[in-house]
């Protein structure tokens, strides 16, 4: 595998703090390339035992299983720290997230009662 500067996946993360809750608006690809940045950005909030971490998927253009796996890791860690991870606006990615079992570890309101 090689890299190309103009083909490289990009992910922009906007942080919106609101008391015990912090929302991260994701814009771009949650892919192999961007997962490290995704982890680095969210991890400090898990470490500081943030009560509720919300990932807003509205601007997500691509996901891969490794990216979903990172979100699962975050949800498990947050739970162990007494916090919670919620995924919002998952839209067309709902089925893929369900298949990977994200709803088992995180709040995903759109997947409540979801039938694949």
């Amino acid at each position, binding site marked *: *595998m*090689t*890299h*190309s500067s103009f*083909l*490289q*996946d990009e992910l922009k993360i906007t942080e919106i703090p609101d008391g015990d809750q912090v929302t991260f608006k994701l814009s771009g*690809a949650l*892919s*192999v*390339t961007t997962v490290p940045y995704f982890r680095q950005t969210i991890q400090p909030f898990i470490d500081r035992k943030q009560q509720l971490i919300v990932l807003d998927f509205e601007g997500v253009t*691509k*996901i*891969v*299983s*490794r990216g*979903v*796996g*990172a*979100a*699962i*890791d975050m*949800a*498990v*860690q947050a739970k162990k720290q007494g916090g919670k991870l919620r995924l919002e606006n998952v839209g*067309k*990615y709902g*089925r*893929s997230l369900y*298949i*990977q*079992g994200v709803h*088992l*570890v995180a709040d995903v309101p759109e997947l409540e009662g979801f039938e*694949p």
Partner: protein
Amino acid sequence: MGDKSLKLQISIPPVEGIEDIPIAAIEVLASKMGFSPDLAQDIVQALTEACVNAIMYTNNDADVDIVVYATHDSLMVEVRDKGKGFDPTSVPSPDFDLMQEVGGGAGGFGLHMIKSLVDKLEIDSGPTGTVIRMSKYLKPVSSVPN
């Protein structure tokens, strides 16, 4: 399209992110064939996973070939790479109980996702490469003759 089948082949170098181009083309094809947006997204997601793996595990400059066979009621997509191959039977199914304890690092999710999103999956893999063959049917799979 009638009964005439269509073959489409796109070769891409193993460059990260380039898979978006053939995937966009196949999404358009699936939509034109009459796949619902949900089913077209299943194809896109399975193909994304297969292409990313093919690109990631290609340890030379050989192209990854994406070959599509479309008929009036089915879409079959092959992703062919010339990487070192793997043993599909050695990939464990995801353990959701373990996942809830240790997180997504438990592994096995990519192949599981592909299996869950397509109607038929075949994998041929050896030391000179891998072919992932994914089929999706326009009709419910139970009504498709063997």
